């Protein structure tokens, strides 16, 4: 006769009564992973059918560059989401970079302004990471506060007026091409590749997944969880800055409202691509698919000649659906 060393899990009222069927769990999990790539294909096909101009060379270039910029920002956002955090200040950092670099027109050296910009982005990331890890501030609030602060700083600094032209080298990166491919796209692919390699083949990459998956177990295994979270935030802010530089290179001038939607869209892209809010789950391939989906959809709206409010509605809808799906998926998994 055998005995149990420990009693089975406790029963907590009616919740335990809900046992999702394995098929449902599997289906939702699969949907969470493949929703974005499948949707991408659907949109591409729909575009070919509805609006052939979608595949014209100018539009393709626009698409590629927009994917690159959102992709760079979303890569950073993915890292932060992986460690159970979030970064809502990306849009402000993105715009900040443009404002600072533009100072070259009034004679400041390119290197100095670049250095300033990256330094500020790093400080913002440090502050975000510190607030979230050492002070245990809910990430949403900490980074939203940072967003307001940085936006205010940027607007105060530029006195609400966009002035100055974008330096030449940025124009090249933002708008130039290397053979058939836009430089921006290449930059994104290279960056993505590097981050992918880091996530898979370095200790730091493992630490990110460990800290996001189970922070206590990570600490027991000797990982310095706070340092990892702070590092993720720094990388995210720096990447956001980079994205802003490329974007302003592409546009060619400094726009006050630059990048306002990159907050929402970088998060939506990552979530649609299978990254979760609860941490430790997600990868850059999924994020890339999510980025493509958002850019394709928004571009389709423009090409179809639909008014701009469709864009907002669509962005919001994608985020809502993606979040709802992920939330449900996490709920089922935890049963």
């Amino acid at each position: 006769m055998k005995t149990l060393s420990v009693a089975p899990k406790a029963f907590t009222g009616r919740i335990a009564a809900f046992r999702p069927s394995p098929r449902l769990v599997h289906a939702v999990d699969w949907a969470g992973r493949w929703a974005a790539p499948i949707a991408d294909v659907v949109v591409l096909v729909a575009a070919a059918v509805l609006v052939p101009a979608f595949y014209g060379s100018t539009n393709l270039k626009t698409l590629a560059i927009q994917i690159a910029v959102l992709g760079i920002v979303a890569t950073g956002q993915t890292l932060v989401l992986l460690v159970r955090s979030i970064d809502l200040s990306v849009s402000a950092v993105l715009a900040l970079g443009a404002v600072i670099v533009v100072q070259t027109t009034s004679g400041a050296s390119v290197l100095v302004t670049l250095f300033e910009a990256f330094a500020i982005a790093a400080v913002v990331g440090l502050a975000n990471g510190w607030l979230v890890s050492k002070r245990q501030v809910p990430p949403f609030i900490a980074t939203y506060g940072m967003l307001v602060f940085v936006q205010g700083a940027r607007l105060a600094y530029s006195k609400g007026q966009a002035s100055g032209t974008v330096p030449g080298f940025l124009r090249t990166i933002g708008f130039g091409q290397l053979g058939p491919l836009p430089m921006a796209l290449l930059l994104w692919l290279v960056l993505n590749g590097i981050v992918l390699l880091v996530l898979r083949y370095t200790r730091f990459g493992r630490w990110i997944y460990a800290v996001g998956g189970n922070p206590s177990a990570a600490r027991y295994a000797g990982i310095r969880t706070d340092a990892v979270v702070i590092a993720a935030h720094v990388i995210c802010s720096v990447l956001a800055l980079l994205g802003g530089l490329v974007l302003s290179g592409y546009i060619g001038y400094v726009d006050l409202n630059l990048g306002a939607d990159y907050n929402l869209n970088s998060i939506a892209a990552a979530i649609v691509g299978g990254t979760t809010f609860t941490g430790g789950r997600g990868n850059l391939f999924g994020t890339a698919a999510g980025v493509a989906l958002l850019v394709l959809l928004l571009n389709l709206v423009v090409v179809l000649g639909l008014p701009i409010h469709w864009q907002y509605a669509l962005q919001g809808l994608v985020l809502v659906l993606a979040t709802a799906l992920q939330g449900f998926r996490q709920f089922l998994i935890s049963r």
Partner: protein
Amino acid sequence: MGTEPSSSPQTLLSLKHISKTFGGIHALADVSFDLRPSEVHALVGENGAGKSTLIKIITGAYTADRGTITLSGVEYDRLSPELARRLGIGAVYQEFNLLPELSVAENIYLKSPPIGRLGLIDARARAQNVLRLLERLGAQTHIAPDQPVKYLTVGEQQIVEITKALATNAHILILDEPSAVLPSRDLDRLFNVIRALRAEGHGIIYISHRLNEIFELADRVTVLKDGQTITTKAVAETNNAELVRLMVGRSLTDLYPPKDNQPGQVLLDVSGLCVEGNVFDIGFQVREGEVVGMAGLGGSGRTTVCRSLVGLGKIQSGQITYRGRPAPGNPASAARAGLVLIPEDRKAFGLILNQSMRFNLTLPNLLQFQQTGWLRPGLEQQAVDRAIADNQIRPSDPELGTENLSGGNQQKVVVGKWLLSGPKLVVFDEPTRGIDVGAKAEIYARIRDLTLRGVGVIMASSELPELLGMCDRMLVFHEGRLTGELARPDFSEEAIMRLATGTEPAPAP
């Protein structure tokens, strides 16, 4: 045999022929139990004897496979939590269900507070109700109804939990190891509360490991072992030694690999260790190739000591010397020095559940596979395959997610990941909790393997059989102190239990 369970109208609760199986393992087999009014009925037994399962059946959380429950003369096959509550069954567990920010009165009357004029909560009536309840328990002088629960001591919070049960008109109260969370000075208050309840006619089921409490408080005692009722007796008709004998006393199985190597140098030397106000004056040594066991009941301080060895937990005084040097101050440097802790709760602290076995196995050891800054998959794969083979982890696909493994295999992954780093001293805290017999044997084999290679092992466990089977020496803890150290020739379940329950006084220092 003891007294037969009665179903007279006098009896509050009567369980007959209760059986419960979980996946082929009998948690309870033909158990009978009854509770009379104005009685404190103690329930004792080792871990795994079936106490928790029995309680869950009474409170309706589980349904028995066979048997009946009779409450005040009415028979039921099964209870649900709501039904049990309505029929007057209340329980207080070790994990409280209180909202710390809300007041005592609000917690007690959370669901249906008294409603006054205008449909608003009548706070005054609520406070007065609470005071009246507290009066019945004799606790009104030190708990104020409007105080937020977070400001109460653990003992006071426990009384609030008991009051909650009273508020729902429970006349059967189950207390699950109430003294495990209390410092000794609060025990008297708890006992007074229980006596007051008994005087009112309630029936109390009191689960505890601490036999002296039972002799102080209880009227009858029921001993469970291996899912069966061994006996039910009036407390006056038995004694500590007899209870201990009834609780244990089974033959050892052949689970444990034989050992015969000689211990080597001293790896760890602990003296005068006091930690976190829980643990006092602990001193012992561990040598190479030795297995030192830590026995004791819940809350006796073993886990605290284990954690302190790797730098978790505040050491107030004393010394720990590891390989001739002061002990490392945090888990990371401890691991690097070869001193490793395998924690009690593998899911919370041992594994990243949503990752693969390979991920988990290599996590603390990544430096081994790193060349020029990058991790080499080849090196990693070799080490992982070896670890899976050495630890007999099944299924053997390294990419499988750890959340899909059985408890036994999960534990093997935790053990495997720490053993990969080639430690010199391994501390196991409950190494085989919640694991099937086959996996247990494999883990024991692994431990034996370690000792043959000169690694020192500390094994803290609540399971006497495995301690008796695996250890060379045994340290017995009771309420934060060492009550005894036994050498292998002196091993016996009774001896350990006596030391663990404080039946035998601690030897003079």
